[in-house]
């Protein structure tokens, strides 16, 4: 195809016009404004939902964290070392306790304290 032929077709394409009239234009505008308003409402609801959801999550997290915080001696024992509990209950000494015992004997010169 020659450049001249293409130019002729382009002229024809430019000459074509859509049936865009005042009535159609007004209809599109009215519809655009209505849709914009509904999009705005939807976004507002969505924003509020996100804010409420985030607040609820924060509150739930805070309540959960408070429930885990030690507030009494009973709950404090829950946080003490497992080795200490074991020793108090009369079980086998932990490796740490064995080391301490050995160190005490060495300090005494291995003769005991009787």
């Amino acid at each position, binding site marked *: *195809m020659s450049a001249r032929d293409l130019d002729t077709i382009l002229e024809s394409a*430019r*000459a*074509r016009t859509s049936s*865009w009239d005042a009535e159609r234009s007004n209809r599109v*505008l009215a519809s655009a404004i209505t*849709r914009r308003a509904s999009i705005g409402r939807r976004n507002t609801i969505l924003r509020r939902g996100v804010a409420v959801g985030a607040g609820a999550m924060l509150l739930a997290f805070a309540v959960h964290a408070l429930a885990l915080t030690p507030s009494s001696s009973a709950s404090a024992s829950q946080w003490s070392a497992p080795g200490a509990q074991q020793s108090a209950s009369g079980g086998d000494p932990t490796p740490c306790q064995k080391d301490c015992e050995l160190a005490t004997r060495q300090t005494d010169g291995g003769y005991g304290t009787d």
Partner: protein
Amino acid sequence: MVAIARNPAAGVFEAVHATGANELFDRARAGDNAAFGELYAMHSRYIAGVVYRLLGNDGDLDDVVQETFIDALSGLSTLHDPSALRAWLVTVAVRRTRRLLARRRRRAFFGSLLRDHSATASDPRDRQPVDELYDALDRLPEDLRIPWALHRIEHLSLPEAAEACEVSLATIKRRIAEAEERIQKRLSP
């Protein structure tokens, strides 16, 4: 105060009262629907013409124009220069048209016919060549089709087309040249 603004639709220069236009623009930005309606009345016909020549038919014209102005209503606050409104609207319309063409392409991929969207010429003598041109355009990717149509059919300058497509001048030149080559090949007997 009177300023000169270019009217690309008619290709002439028209005088506009800048103060009035600025006021209208500011009111529209502040959410005044009546002011937005006036801006719409000033620009909708031109935007509809651009979209029509990009698509080649009337079918989805209302939807694209409507979506363009909905986007414009939301994004008007980001625009600071009232004189750039028309070019900015073209950019928004091009973005919307590209999405529509991509959707059409997906539909075509899943079985719809590209022929459904072929052009309809007002003059019966022009029907065949214009239809063939739009058939050829339908087979081009949006990134080639839109710059070519903006420059060759809509007569936008290269910088204007580059701005509308949100790409560099070098990219727009390369895309238009590639589209031109493919269209020439397609239309050759």
